[in-house]
């Protein structure tokens, strides 16, 4: 247990220090949402139609960005061999790493989400709701993404493969999350989409580390 916990603490630190790159997804999320009005037109009605959906897509794609390096760096420098060769389960390593990167990146993503939300003409009173949704949604995106990250860890330029493997897994979170944001924007019923998004996230958290561990064991074989 001390193994997984120490890996979690180390990754959390590495994610925000040199080369970790937790800032990149945050920048991407902000940039993608900010340029939306230039593409769909800055009319309030236009943004009300497109805004929540675009924001949710931007969150999903921003969460995909750190996936290419999630396990690749450890595989390349031998850290994964050292972890596996010392008899600590790959499941714990995958869970610890993904959780750390979600905390390092998902929380900043959720913090800037309401700013982007208001910029896209979302009602300000729904800001807290947007934060909660972004937190839960990014958890689902990160944990499902870790499966693709593990599968592509041994590949140069594995980003495309990660997107291909991961995007189908994103679909339930995509549907329920966007439905929730649209409900929040129009003052509709949001409890059901929130619970379904949370269910997707919990499913991802519960299952992804086993799938990722299997892929990582193959990667170091």
């Amino acid at each position: 247990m001390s193994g997984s916990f120490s890996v979690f603490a180390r990754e959390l630190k590495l994610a925000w220090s040199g080369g970790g790159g937790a800032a990149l997804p945050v920048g991407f999320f902000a940039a993608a949402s900010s340029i939306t009005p230039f593409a769909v037109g800055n009319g309030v009605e236009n943004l009300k139609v497109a805004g929540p959906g675009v924001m949710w897509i931007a969150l999903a794609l921003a969460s995909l960005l750190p996936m290419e390096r999630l396990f690749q760096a450890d595989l390349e420098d031998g850290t994964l061999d050292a972890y596996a060769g010392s008899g600590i389960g790959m499941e714990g390593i995958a869970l610890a790493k993904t959780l750390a990167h979600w905390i390092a990146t998902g929380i900043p993503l959720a913090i800037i989400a309401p700013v982007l939300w208001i910029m896209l003409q979302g009602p300000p009173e729904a800001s807290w709701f947007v934060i909660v949704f972004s937190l839960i949604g990014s958890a689902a995106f990160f944990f499902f993404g870790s499966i693709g990250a593990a599968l592509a860890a041994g590949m140069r330029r594995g980003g495309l493969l990660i997107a291909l493997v991961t995007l189908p897994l994103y679909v339930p979170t995509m549907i329920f999350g966007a439905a929730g944001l649209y409900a929040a924007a129009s003052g509709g019923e949001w409890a059901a989409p929130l619970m379904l998004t949370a269910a997707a996230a919990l499913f991802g958290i519960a299952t992804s580390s086993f799938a990722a561990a299997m892929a990582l064991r193959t990667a170091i074989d």
Partner: protein
Amino acid sequence: MLGAGASSLVLEVENLAAARGLRILFEGLSFRLSGGEVLELRGPNGSGKSTLLRILAGLTRAHAGTLAFTAAGEDEPGRHYLGHLDAVKPSETAAEQAAFWARYFGRDQAEALKAMKRVGLSGREQVPGRGLSAGQKRRLALVRLLIEPRPVWLLDEPTAALDIEGRALVTQLVAEHRARGGMVIAAIHGDGFEGSRTLDISELKTGAVA
């Protein structure tokens, strides 16, 4: 130091074969090694020394055959695997990495400091991984062996990149580990360890374990 079972430590390998893709690297490897013994793996590049070590470490699946580490009173004796890659993070300082491994193995931070001193990295504690030379990275990798005492050491060219003093250190560490009843299996070129057994992998079809 290695637990009551260390002296009864045994590795039994039977009819082991390794393959990379469709190519069989070696087959029919059988040997028995006890605690307190050192086995040097020799053979030309590409003969399967690293693959054998990875199989013994549980990282790579064997193509055929069985292997079993046993020790009285232990489920499975702990192993350390030191590969070609040193598992050194470029952005963490040497001290941070040693401290990390101490936490990883659930050991005291004092162990990390002691190990850093032992491998000759005193004074380099605050240098980030990217600033360490190849030999210093290797020394930092050796820290893992010292922080967590484990009966089985699997070393892939442990002296690569090390200077003369570093080589002497590895020889010394191996001798001490052996004296404690530990087992060492090392792929090595050049000077070996005193009193060790030798396995030339390129002669494996004859199963020659001296």
